[in-house]
């Protein structure tokens, strides 16, 4: 991608247009990985997809602690979120006791980045 394409001015969009994610569970602990589609977008993820914002996103689910591990080699990061699975796969009443769908809750978070970094139609 050329620099000209990147510099199209700021746009606010769901994280879904910037990054992909997968959820994993162990007991009552969830992890959400997050990877920028384009390495140029990684710094924006680091800046905007913070532990505090992820904790707020999952506050209604009782998230007690969020830790973020940065993986710059992969243009990615890993969130580890405690007590968010309502008892986990063998204890929850939620249809999705694994929390597998929560990767797309994360991808619904809005971010503001240069429009040139976004996938899909604006």
């Amino acid at each position, binding site marked *: 991608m050329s620099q000209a394409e990147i510099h199209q001015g700021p746009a606010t969009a769901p994280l879904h247009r910037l990054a992909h994610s997968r959820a994993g569970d162990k007991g009552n602990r969830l992890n959400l990985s997050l990877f920028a589609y384009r390495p140029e977008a990684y710094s924006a993820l680091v800046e905007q997809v913070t532990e505090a914002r992820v904790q707020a996103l999952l506050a209604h*689910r009782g998230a007690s602690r969020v830790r973020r591990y940065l993986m710059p080699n*992969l243009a990615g990061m890993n969130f580890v979120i405690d007590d968010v699975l309502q008892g986990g796969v063998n204890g929850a009443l939620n*249809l999705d006791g694994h929390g597998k769908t929560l990767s797309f809750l994360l991808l619904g978070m809005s971010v503001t980045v240069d429009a040139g970094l976004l996938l899909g139609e604006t």
Partner: protein
Amino acid sequence: MSFLLGSGAGFSGDRTDAAAPIVAELIRRGQPCALVFETLGERTLAAAHRAMRETPEAGFEPLLDELLAPVLRDCLRHGIAILGNFGAANPDGACEVVSRLARQAGRPDIRIGRVHGDDIRARLTDLDLTLWEAETQALPEADQLVSANVYLGAAPLVQALELGAEVVVTGRVADPSLFLAPLVHHFGWAWDDWDRLAAGIMAGHLGECGAQVSGGYFADPGFKEVEGLATLGYPIIEVEVDGRLVVTKPPGTGGCVTERTVKEQLLYEVHDPAAYLTPDVVVDLSGAQVRELGPDRVEVMGIRGKPAPPRLKTTVCYEGGWQGEAEISYAGPNALARARLAGQVLRERLAFRVPQELRKRLDIVGHASVFDDDDGTLQREPAAPDGDYRLRLAVEHPERVWVERATQELLALYCAGPAGGGGVRRQLQRRVCTASYLVKRTDVEAFATLVDSGSSDHVAS
């Protein structure tokens, strides 16, 4: 020459025709190799124990016949070792199935290795237990305990292979250790060669969920395209003696192995990437790099290992009472209001029809369900008044009678609830809950024996 690790299944309930193309490719390449079936998770271990208390002969992987039958004859003929945790709660039962399938395949003399030592229930209360780091619950009372299984490492599986086992049957073993074992057996890696063990574990980690690394659980139309999801190729991991590893899949199959599919699986169920705990090694993948070498060929580098942890994770299953679910649909004009009213009526009824300690949750599928909490926080947000909504009740109680009563109250919405409700479904099941603890490695005695294929008598190792 690299060692090839084929993945035949990534969970209990996975596609049962996935292994055939893997085995065909392993035979075609003619290199040292093994085929691994990973079919045991926290959910399935609990399900296996639940099945076994209702039917004592059950408790192993229910799809074992269908998974093994298509490939067993070819694997035995070509010397492809099969390793699987399909023994679940009843490895002896699984061994009997493997024996029978082998007889049918013309190999009544099959050598089956059976791994012992994960079941520590009988000794549990005598052991020095600590809480797993994300566990908050104290050990349940003895009369509530259903089972206790330690996550074993690769050593007893290597022992089984050294005994000449052609199929290795295990219960609870750490998933990636199923893949590490044939590597250690083949390459002769030392048990303190941490970097190589870590690479082998990560080869296993990438392969243990089957197609999740080769295009499964990945597609997002318009963003992440995957061709051929209906004919996904399951992964083959090529591992070199120095620990270099490449993820690939059989030619002519659907799916894809790309930098992105591998990255998603690399961090799947990982917590601190600098300390991924396994029974065999603590893996540091914080410096991992992923590189596409060509179509469907991705190399993973930069994996480091640290000494194995002094304690092993143990899953304890205990009585969880009964769980029930019931659902009813409302569609068309004003459907949301009718679904909400149905939920309100149900709450009012349950307030006096069942004990108040009954745990319950109401979802409106189509508006808010899987993202929501048990109190329905997201459900209170506005949504389109017309649509296709499904009210779902989930309840839990130690006594079956109250769970039945609660779900029956949803059923009664047919005639006594709002207009136009339809499509009620109810289900009820006994619940087995799980909690995780740590036991001292030195308190666990893991070993392998060969099973006499004529019966289940064990030959001492």
